[in-house]
């Protein structure tokens, strides 16, 4: 009847669009992951068109699981995501507690703090890897050189000169090797997402029960016990949410990896899929299915938590 059909009608464009968006490409990925499908193969040209006659069963999955790159990409994904989560949560809590109370210029500090979050990922990566972390021309290189110059200068100083002559010449770190470029990614994403964590923790701190705190003060609780026994438990839920939302975003981190690590072996799952997709679509699709499974594990927990707050 009219009362029911109209709401359905209003929802249907959004629902149908998302349904297509989800089902069509994903089912194709699923299909490709079970067939032999490559873009170029001179000896077996029949593999270059997707078809059921090229059925491979779980062959692509086996191929991917036995591929060194896959294991490395998984490890690297976990390293990157885990480190980012660790640092953003720690910094986020500390900074949120620090700026939760009012002080002169709090509004401005907030604005300064949140800014990194709105920087487009491509710019973030270019900015950090070139202008800040570059071992020669970036701020890092300049700072290390400057420090070395100072030390060299001090070697000739009277009295303390002998002490500085014991010092080695500092070497700048190159962030373009396989492992160090993962660190670079961790640094730049932590910079970008700590503000997000701060913002959410601050929102949550604002709803902290002030009377409870005052009662605790009267009971003789110092700042540390207040933090430990009142604030941290209060932040438990937002921390869980920050962790999960970030996990979902960072598992599909792409632009930063692409810019920082092209050609140097550092990769995560999305990047590996991109590499496979240059030729071996079957493997790319199987990897994609693994990525979906990984994301779903996180998503289920997140959706549960959100579902609870939904509809009051």
């Amino acid at each position, binding site marked *: 009847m009219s009362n029911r059909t109209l709401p359905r009608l209003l929802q249907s464009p959004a629902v149908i669009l998302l349904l297509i968006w989800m089902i069509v490409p994903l089912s194709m990925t699923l299909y490709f992951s079970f067939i032999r499908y490559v873009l170029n193969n001179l000896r077996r040209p029949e593999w270059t068109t997707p078809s059921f006659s090229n059925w491979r069963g779980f062959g692509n999955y086996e191929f991917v699981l036995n591929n060194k790159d896959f294991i490395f990409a998984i490890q690297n994904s976990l390293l990157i995501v885990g480190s980012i989560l660790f640092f953003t949560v720690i910094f986020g809590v500390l900074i949120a507690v620090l*700026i939760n109370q009012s002080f002169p210029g709090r509004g401005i500090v907030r604005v300064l*703090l949140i800014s990194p979050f709105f*920087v487009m990922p491509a710019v973030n990566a270019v900015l950090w890897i070139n202008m800040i972390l570059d071992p020669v021309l970036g701020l890092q290189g*300049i700072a290390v*050189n400057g420090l070395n110059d100072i030390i060299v200068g001090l070697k000739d100083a009277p009295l303390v000169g002998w002490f500085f002559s014991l010092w080695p010449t500092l070497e700048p770190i190159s962030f373009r090797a396989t492992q160090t470029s993962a660190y670079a990614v961790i640094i730049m994403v932590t910079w970008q997402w700590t503000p997000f964590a701060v913002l959410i923790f601050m929102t949550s701190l604002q709803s902290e029960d002030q009377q409870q705190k005052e009662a605790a003060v009267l009971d003789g609780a110092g700042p540390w016990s207040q933090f430990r026994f009142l604030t941290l438990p209060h932040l438990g839920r937002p921390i869980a949410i920050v962790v999960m939302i970030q996990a979902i975003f960072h598992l599909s981190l792409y632009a930063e990896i*692409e810019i920082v690590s092209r050609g140097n072996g550092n990769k995560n799952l*999305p990047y590996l899929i991109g590499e496979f997709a240059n030729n071996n679509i079957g493997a790319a699709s199987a990897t994609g299915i693994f990525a979906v499974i990984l*994301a779903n594990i*996180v998503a289920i927990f*997140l959706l549960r938590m959100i579902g609870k707050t939904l509809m009051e």
Partner: protein
Amino acid sequence: MAIVAQSTRYGKVTRTILAWAVGLLFFFPIFWLVLTSFKTDADAVKPEFLFFFTPTLENYLNMTENYDYWRFATNSIITSIFATVFTLAVGIPCAYAMAFNPSRATKDVLMWMLSTKMLPAAAVLYPMTFLTKNFLGIYDTHFLVIIVLSLINLPIVVWMLFTYFKEIPKDIIEAGKMDGVNTWGEIREILIPLAWGGIASTALLCFIFCWNEAYWTVRLTTTEAATLSKLIEGNRAPEGLFFGRLSAVSAAAVGPIVVLGWFCQKQLVQGLTFGAVK
């Protein structure tokens, strides 16, 4: 008493200094980007011109010759604006129906919408390329970018609008029904004016997300519809040659968005946590 007061005063001063230090530290890279954008390419890599140099606008004036900046910027503007408008056009009726005529399935539909957002984009990379290139022939078109940006932001937009709309008393919508408005009238005359603030900040956030998107805009375009993300990504490794000019395009690409972002900090929390943090 006096000692306590004094020690808290010191505490306050320390905290103020510390807070400012943290704020400045986080802002520093952006500041550095902007600062470098006013240096010539040669000056930008010389330690002696770190903070003191002769500022020049050359990098900004030459953005078009160096990078064809405005073509990419135009693409970014067009795709982000149209995607935002389209997302709202689809999202407002949907959120309206969910907020004012909820059924038992509403909660599940909302959760399902969110779950599409959690699908890793890379997993469907090749099918998307395949479909848009070989099948639909819309690879590297504005149309494609607009559709994709809309779809990836639709769940968040519906979600945010839903939380805003739920705060409007149901009575007011029903009063409208009694006063003789049809559904379209309810949305136009009552819902949109009432939720204007929420809709505006949702739109703003959606625009920011569209602008910053860096997977599909990079992978599904080559030249025609390429956005600023693609421009920057394509010039990622200048080996110190073009720090000045690269900083200028980068600053031009992020500056306006960072400023817009300042205006929707609050909505960001709601939008990104799906109302789960109050």
